[in-house]
C-alpha cells in the first residue's frame, strides 16, 4: 500500500485543555491516500466539520489548545508545526472549500482581485492570464468579464465554482470540502460534483469530503467514514458500506433516507436525537438509541475488521444485508 498523504491518529478535540473537558472529537483515526476521496458523513454535531477544520489548524484557540493526537501530513505532524510552516501548507498543499460561497468570498472585492491574491502566493508569472485560465477550468463563461465583476453578480453555482478555482489556485494535494453543495439546488449540485470529479482527475488531488448526504457520497467518494457523536463508527469502501453496512447507526441512517424508487408507508427511524457534546453517553455513544444494544455496549467497543478495509466499532455488528 502507498504511504498515506494524511494520517490522523487518535485525534481528540476538547473544549479546553483539561482532561475532563467535553470532547467534540474523541480518538479519531483515519488515512487519506494520494488521489483518494474520503467521505466523512454524519449528522450535525457529529464532529465532521471540526475534523476538517482541525487538519488545517483553524480551530478557535480554545479548541486548538484542547487538541491532542497526531495529524501527520506527508510525514510531518501538523500539531507540532510552527505557525509559519503551517501557513505555507494552508491554502497551498492543503486547501478547503466551504458550504456557503457568499461568505467565503469578499463581497467588496472583484472576483479577479480575490483570484489573483490566491494565485500570487504560488508565484505565477502573468496573474491575469492565470486568473482567466483558472475560471476557464471551472467552466465559467466569458471569464475576462467575470474577473471584473463582484460575487453578488453571480449565481450560487457560479460563486461556488469561483471558490473552487481559488481553492485550487496553488494546486493542492488535498482539498477539504465541507458540505460544498448543501446550499446548491439539485441540478446545480449535480453539475458541481461532476466538475469536482474532473478537477480531481486533472489535478491528481485527494479530497476529504464532508457531507450529511449519502447520495453525494455515492457519487463522488471512494471510501467513507461514518461519524457519530465525535467518533468514527464505521469506515470502508463506498460500495462495501452501501451493500453491507454493519454498524446499526449506518444501517438506520441509510434506511431512513427516502428514495425516488419506492415509497414505503413509513420510513424506518432512529428514535431520539443525537447527544449534545456535554452529554455523550459512556461506552458506545449510539447505545441509548440502538435497537441491538446490550449491557456490554456501556463499554467502549473495539474496532473490528469485518471485510476488506472495512472497519466497524460495535459490539454487535449486523450480518444481514440491508
Amino acid at each position, binding site marked *: 500500500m502507498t504511504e498515506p498523504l494524511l494520517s490522523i491518529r487518535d485525534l481528540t478535540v476538547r473544549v479546553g485543555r483539561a482532561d475532563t473537558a467535553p470532547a467534540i472529537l474523541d480518538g479519531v483515526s483515519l488515512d487519506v491516500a494520494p488521489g483518494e476521496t474520503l467521505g466523512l458523513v454524519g449528522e450535525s454535531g457529529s464532529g465532521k466539520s471540526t475534523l476538517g477544520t482541525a487538519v488545517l489548524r483553524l480551530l478557535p484557540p480554545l479548541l486548538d489548545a484542547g487538541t491532542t493526537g497526531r495529524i501527520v501530513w506527508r510525514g510531518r505532524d501538523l500539531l507540532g508545526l510552527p505557525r509559519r510552516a503551517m501557513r505555507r501548507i494552508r491554502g497551498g498543499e492543503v486547501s478547503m472549500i466551504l458550504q456557503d460561497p457568499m461568505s467565503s468570498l469578499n463581497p467588496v472585492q472583484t472576483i479577479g482581485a480575490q483570484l489573483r491574491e490566491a494565485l500570487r502566493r504560488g508565484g505565477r508569472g502573468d496573474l491575469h492570464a492565470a486568473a482567466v485560465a483558472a475560471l476557464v477550468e471551472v467552466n465559467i463563461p466569458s471569464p475576462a468579464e467575470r474577473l471584473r465583476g463582484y460575487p453578488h453578480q453571480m449565481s450560487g453555482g457560479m460563486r461556488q465554482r469561483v471558490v473552487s478555482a481559488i481553492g485550487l489556485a496553488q494546486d493542492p494535494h488535498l482539498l477539504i470540502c465541507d458540505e460544498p453543495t448543501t446550499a446548491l439546488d439539485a441540478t446545480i449540485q449535480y453539475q458541481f460534483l461532476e466538475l469536482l470529479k474532473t478537477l480531481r482527475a486533472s489535478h491528481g488531488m485527494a479530497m476529504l469530503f464532508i457531507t450529511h448526504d449519502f447520495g453525494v457520497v455515492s457519487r463522488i467518494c471512494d471510501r467513507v467514514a461514518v461519524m457519530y457523536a465525535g467518533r468514527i463508527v464505521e469506515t470502508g469502501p463506498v460500495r462495501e458500506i*452501501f451493500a453491507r453496512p454493519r454498524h446499526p447507526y449506518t444501517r438506520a441512517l441509510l434506511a431512513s433516507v427516502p428514495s425516488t424508487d419506492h415509497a414505503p408507508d413509513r420510513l424506518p427511524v432512529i428514535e431520539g436525537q443525537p447527544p449534545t457534546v456535554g452529554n455523550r453517553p459512556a461506552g458506545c455513544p449510539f447505545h441509548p438509541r440502538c435497537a441491538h444494544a446490550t449491557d456490554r455496549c456501556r463499554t467502549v467497543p473495539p474496532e473490528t475488521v469485518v471485510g476488506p478495509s472495512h472497519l466497524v466499532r460495535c459490539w454487535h455488528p449486523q450480518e444481514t444485508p440491508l
Partner: protein
Amino acid sequence: MTPAPILEARDLSRTFRVRGGNLHALSEVSLSCSPGRSIGIVGESGCGKTTLNRLLLQLDRPTSGEVLFRGVPLPRLDTAGRHAYRRAVQPVFQNPYSSLSPRMRVRNIIAEPLLATGTATRAEAWRRVDEVLEQVGLSARAGDRVPSEFSGGQRQRIAIARALASRPELLLLDEPVSSQDISIQAQILNLLKDLRAEYGLATLFVSHNLATVRFMCDEVVVIYLGRIVERGPAARICTAPQHPYTRALLAAALPADPDAHADTTPPMGELPSPLSPPPGCPYNPRCPHARDICRAERPALASRHDGLVACHVAHEGGI
C-alpha cells in the same frame, strides 16, 4: 366523484415590479387541494414555490387569477368565512428557528391561533395544547418552556402542533424538513404522514427533493420559472417523467447507491433570470431535446398519459 376542494388556485399569477422590469414569479398556476389528498410542489430556488405558498395563505395577493376557499374567492369571504379559512388552512414553515417567537412559551405559541380565530375559550385552548403536544410526540410539560430549550426537530414538532391546534383541514408545508438532520427528517415525515391518515388532512407539500415528495404525496406538480411544466401521480413522475426538466431533477436526486444507472439526461446549465425568461419553452436553453419550435412557441400544459405536461417534444411522441 371527488369531494369538493378545500382550497383551489385558478390561473394564479404574481408579477413583481422590480428595477429592470417585471418579474413573473408565478404564471397561470392552477391546482386544488381536496380532503385526504396530498400534493407535492417540486422545483428549485426561484421557481415560485414560496410565492405560491404565500398566495394560498393570503399573505400576498395575486396579480391575476384567484384563490378559492370552499368555492369562494378569498377576498370575497365574509367574517365568518375568513375565520373558517384561517382555522382550516394552516402553515408549517421551513425554519422553526424563525417561525416560533423566542419570547413566548410553547403553550401560548400553540394556543395563539385558537384564541385569535375565536374558536376556543381559554380553558378549551389549554386542553387542546396538551392534546396536540402529545400528538406530535412531546410531553404536556413542554408547554411551559420556551423554544430555545428545544432542538431543531422538537421545534418543528411544536410548529406542527400549532398548525394542528385549530383542527385544520389542510396543511401547507413549505420545506418542513429540509433544515433537519437525516434521522430527524424521517421522524417528522412519518409524523406528518400519520397525522394525515388519522385526521384525513389534505396537505400541500412544497419541496426541492423529489424523493421526499414521492414518500409524502399522491400527486406531484413540477414548477419551472413560475410555470407548471408537469403534473401527475407521484409514483409515475418518479419512474417515467415526461418533461425533460423533471427528468433532470430525477437524475439530480442522487440515490445512495454507487452503482445506480448512469443518467441519460444530466441537468445542464443554470436557471435563466426570471426577469428575462427565454422565449418559447422556458426550459429550452437547458434542454438537450430542444428543437426550433421550443425556441419559438411556449408549449401548452396538456394531458398525456395520466398527467399533464407542457413540452412540445413529449407531445410529439416522447423523448
